[in-house]
């Protein structure tokens, strides 16, 4: 079966997941993002690449932050951006996902940026367009269920490369709720593809999916041990609803075991960087001293995110 995010020439035409993308494509996205980063420093922060194109931000699940960065990225590429918060419109009227897509396609859409609570929803859309033979509409996954958040994964890689230059001698730890995290899955695929020799996941057994080690990671349950000697710490957001079931006793207890505090961070290398996809829960997964400290690169991540999304949009739109 052909990877549905590649066209028949093997070029990236949709970005659905980092899994299955060759290293060359990931590097080319990061390099292109580098060029876009310099655009952000200019007097006019826009380039005309997507002039006249219509980018639809289809957010079936709310996320002001991600939607905003995609909107800025699209606007800096001179595209027209239409934001649709589908929770509030058609889904409640019973229109199916693919009917919505067909309708927006009829409005001459050129790109769908899709956020959906169900894993795989952007695949369904891309395959639907592929089946219809529609080649001029591109799909970018802005986060689907627990599956993938590829632009976040790429901006994390951009951030790591920016500070660490080279992937080939790094140890990276991803900490917290791996089970429900699309960011963790995308980061793991990206890190292993780019040649990071050791990727660790750290969390309680209730928040680690079974068979996670088959994705090429080392599993730790003890944070102090897991952080020993790492170059990069990626903290994940812990959703408050996780406390409702039997996954965790309380946020306080989670913080004690897995919250990133200065003393736990001291186990990592002295020049280790601390990342977080946001929004942060201070005092739950990360201590304010760390979040605001000299090792945190959380705000640069946001800035890099725009350049990375510009790169993804312009590369897919051009293929």
């Amino acid at each position, binding site marked *: 079966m052909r990877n549905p995010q590649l066209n028949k020439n093997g070029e990236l035409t949709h970005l659905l997941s980092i899994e299955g993308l060759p290293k060359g494509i990931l590097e080319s996205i990061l390099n292109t993002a580098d060029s876009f980063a310099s655009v952000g420093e200019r007097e006019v922060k826009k380039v*005309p690449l997507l002039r006249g194109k219509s980018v639809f931000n289809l957010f079936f699940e709310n996320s002001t932050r991600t939607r905003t960065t995609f909107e800025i990225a699209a606007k800096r590429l001179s595209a027209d951006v239409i934001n649709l918060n589908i929770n509030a419109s058609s889904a409640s009227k019973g229109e199916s996902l693919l009917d919505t897509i067909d309708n927006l396609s009829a409005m001459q859409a050129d790109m769908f940026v899709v956020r959906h609570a169900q894993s795989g929803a952007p695949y369904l859309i891309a395959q639907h367009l592929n089946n219809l033979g529609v080649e001029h509409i591109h799909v970018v996954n802005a986060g689907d269920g627990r599956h993938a958040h590829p632009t976040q994964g790429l901006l994390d890689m951009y951030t790591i490369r920016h500070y660490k230059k080279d992937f080939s001698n790094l140890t990276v730890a991803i900490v917290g709720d791996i089970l429900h995290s699309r960011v963790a899955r995308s980061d793991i695929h990206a890190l292993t593809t780019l040649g990071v020799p050791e990727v660790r996941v750290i969390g309680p057994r209730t928040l680690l999916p079974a068979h996670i080690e088959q994705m090429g990671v080392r599993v730790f349950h003890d944070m102090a041990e897991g952080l020993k000697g790492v170059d990069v710490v990626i903290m994940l957001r812990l959703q408050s609803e996780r406390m409702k079931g039997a996954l965790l006793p309380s946020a306080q207890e989670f913080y004690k075991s897995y919250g990133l505090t200065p003393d736990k961070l001291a186990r990592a290398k002295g020049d280790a960087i601390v990342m977080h996809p946001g929004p942060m829960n201070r005092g739950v997964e990360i201590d304010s001293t760390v979040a605001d400290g000299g090792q945190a690169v959380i705000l640069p991540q946001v800035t890099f995110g725009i350049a990375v999304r510009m790169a993804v949009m*312009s*590369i897919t739109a051009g293929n």
Partner: protein
Amino acid sequence: MLIPDAEVLCESLRRQIAPVVSPATVMIGVHTGGAWIAAKLHRALGLTTPLGLLDISFYRDDFARVGLNPQVKKSAIPIDIENAEILLIDDVLYTGRTVRAAMNELFDYGRPKKIDLAVLVDRGGRELPVAARFTGETLILEAHQSLNLAQDASGQLSFQLVEKKDRT
């Protein structure tokens, strides 16, 4: 056809440009060939303003047809170009589309006072109303031919004539 000697043409350009440069001149090379030539001329002319580099990939008018150049480089304009006198350097002037893209990009950095264009070769075939102020050599090529500039390890520039098969 005799393939022009790039080094000779560089020297010719230097001689043409030398009388008109001023301390306000900002030299900007178009990636990749133009950037090589600009680096040579910048040194040879002893310009004191920093050298700029433009990669016009984000401004190409054929994006919809050919997509984004995967090797896109950072544009680097290390000086405020508001009111600057810009000397834009490229290797071969053909349709004029690259120059249009370069000028569009430059205006996103600021409003220069003036832009001049210098090219090693003007091969004719213009599709836009663009002319170079300084030209190393003018010659006529067939549509299926292209003149590619290369730089060797020692920094020597040379032209190669490439016959394209399918595309016109």
